[in-house]
């Protein structure tokens, strides 16, 4: 897709439909769509600084273990500038201000959220996994059972400090 906000709804719909096909209920599929939305927003705002002519790739695949589907794996890649991985985190939740929630939301609704640098010093890769409840997902009702998994420290979100 191109780096335009108008395509977010289509990406959400695709992610949600894929999650449903993989066996997730409507509630969990909605959270998968939310994670995709937040990930893409990070790319649009922080990776590409809202330039609307840049590429983003999203790959949806079943997570397979022992020849059975146990969840879904989502990979989002871009050609944006590479952010230091240690700076990609949520703002402190008690610090009530607009912005800075995207990474926290992704970590709350997915079992695994990993940012990587793409090969060649250009672009980021985000790999997110959500397991089915029967396959040991630790996500429950949209929040991790053990509370917030996001780093609750002031800092940066996505590709650079989030302020929107």
């Amino acid at each position, binding site marked *: 897709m191109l780096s335009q906000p108008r395509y977010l709804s289509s990406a959400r719909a695709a992610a949600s439909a894929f999650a449903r096909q993989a066996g997730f209920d409507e509630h969990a599929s909605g959270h998968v769509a939310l994670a995709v939305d937040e990930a893409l927003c990070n790319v649009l705002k922080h990776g590409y600084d809202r330039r609307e002519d840049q590429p983003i790739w999203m790959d949806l695949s079943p997570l397979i273990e022992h020849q059975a589907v146990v969840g879904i794996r989502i990979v989002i890649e871009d050609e944006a500038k590479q952010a230091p991985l240690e700076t990609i985190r949520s703002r402190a939740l008690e610090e009530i201000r607009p*912005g800075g929630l995207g990474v926290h939301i992704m970590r709350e609704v997915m079992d695994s959220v990993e940012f990587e640098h793409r090969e060649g010093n250009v672009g980021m890769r985000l790999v997110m996994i959500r397991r089915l409840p029967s396959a040991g997902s630790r996500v429950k*009702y949209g929040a991790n059972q053990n509370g917030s998994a996001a780093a609750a420290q002031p800092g940066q979100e996505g590709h650079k400090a989030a302020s929107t």
Partner: protein
Amino acid sequence: MSNTEAMDVRVEERDGAVLVVPTGDVDLHSSPTMRERLRKAAAGKPLRLIVDLSAVPYMDSSGVATLIEAMQISRRQQTLLVLCGLQDRVRSMFQIAKLEQVFRIVPTADEAMKA
């Protein structure tokens, strides 16, 4: 379609309050429209600003950010901001963002008039 045309937002006055009623998903594409309407609605410094979300099936963090901004503006000018009509997915978003206790949230617009 530009960002400022990305969603329908109805604004009406009711018994001294201003009621803002967005319709449709609130995401990075449509939230600038809601932000603009909320800013205009708050500019008149009403005693009560009600955001009726009953026609919003989905909201991402950009929508939440817009509401936090409206809350900050409202507090500065002593306007009471009340949210109502949250659908399940939107309420879930507030739970995930740990914002349920930060906003005044009631079930309906009628209750928001009395909150």
